[in-house]
């Protein structure tokens, strides 16, 4: 997959340069730089507390860096006002977190339709799209179940359907299989990566699991708030 991608330096879709982010006196990122090409699937690895989730939150416009620059598709993200960043997150980005974070009072279909309804898509059309995406995630017939009636793997697949239903340009996933057993995690990853490739969606996955990282086109390692990029160092190819 990687070989067919354009040169990431020349055509970076997401470009973070010397990003610094602290929480109070605690530095989380100390000059982190990374580029992601359009359609690329990037794994972000690193030990706990290394700053990898903070990096993902900065790339996704959830956190604003204290210093450094982040651009998305040629447009500065770090200087956008809060309302523009919120709009971008809602329309161009999809999110999958470790514990799904589905709305427990709603059914699987409601959860998947929710982003469309919030973006003023008509109810009938929203639920038709939700049903299509639940089918693509191999959840046919489970749309009426509440999240408490789903297994961990099923709930995570609902979360992926919800993240992809708006046709995001980038999918951000933070430890998407962290709460699942090996085989279920593998199924979830296969579906997520397979669908992202079909849709041409760029994916950034934070994971500490090597088997998850091996599903990506390449990996970077975050350590002490800085990024080690094997490709930039000319290794691992």
């Amino acid at each position, binding site marked *: 997959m990687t070989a067919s991608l354009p040169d990431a330096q020349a055509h970076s879709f997401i470009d973070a340069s010397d990003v610094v982010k602290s929480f109070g006196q605690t530095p989380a990122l100390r000059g982190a730089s990374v580029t992601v090409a359009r359609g690329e699937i990037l794994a972000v690895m690193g030990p706990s507390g290394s700053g990898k989730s903070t990096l993902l939150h900065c790339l996704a416009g959830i956190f604003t860096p204290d210093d450094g620059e982040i651009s998305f598709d040629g447009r500065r993200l770090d200087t956008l006002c809060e309302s523009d960043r919120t709009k971008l997150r809602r329309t161009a980005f999809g999110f999958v977190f470790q514990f799904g974070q589905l709305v427990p009072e709603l059914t699987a279909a409601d959860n998947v339709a929710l982003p469309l309804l919030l973006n003023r898509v008509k109810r009938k059309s929203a639920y038709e799209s939700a049903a299509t995406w639940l089918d693509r995630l191999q959840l046919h017939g489970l749309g009426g179940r509440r999240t408490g009636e789903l297994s961990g793997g099923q709930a995570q697949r609902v979360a992926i359907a919800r993240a992809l239903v708006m046709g995001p340009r980038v999918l951000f996933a933070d430890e998407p299989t962290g709460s699942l057993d090996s085989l279920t995690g593998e199924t979830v990853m296969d579906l997520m990566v397979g669908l992202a490739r079909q849709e041409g969606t760029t994916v950034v996955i934070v994971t500490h699991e*090597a088997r998850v*990282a091996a599903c990506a086109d390449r990996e970077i*390692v975050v350590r002490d708030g800085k990024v080690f990029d*094997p490709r930039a160092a000319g290794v*691992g190819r």
Partner: protein
Amino acid sequence: MLGVMSVPLTMLGLLEREPSHGYKLKRDYDAYFGRDRPLPFGQVYATLGRLARDGKVVAGEAEPGAGPERKRYVITETGATELETWLAEPAEPEPHLQTVLFTKVVLALMLGRPAERYLDVQRAAHLARMRALTEVKRSDDLLDVLRADYGLFHLEADLRWIDMTAARLSALAREVHR
């Protein structure tokens, strides 16, 4: 403990730390790398002989003293280059590599070389191999999938060791310099 190919390179590493006699070389080797399986004296001198023949070490004049003949061995430029190449290049990712990786990390710390970088390079090589095996798993043949799984789980175990070792490098550096 180490594979046959690693013993001469490990001895070169110990000689880069400081020139040494065969006896001391064996003692250091056993202390760090041969705790389970000490190196026989015969192998030490045979290896030193081959390293000298190939221009990777030079032996000084025999030093006078009681007991067996004592020659002091010094690593040459050729030997140092070979050692550097071996340390910096990732080992071919395959199961049961731990002895080679262990040796590289300990030698790198001993010699003040960038052990963390060597681990990063090795991690990248392992992940590249895991990506290739993950691709194999997209096959419909369940036997291929099971074979790929076996390799993936073993490589994953290596990676967990690499990550744990990376987290312990400072403490390990203190240990080898004690």
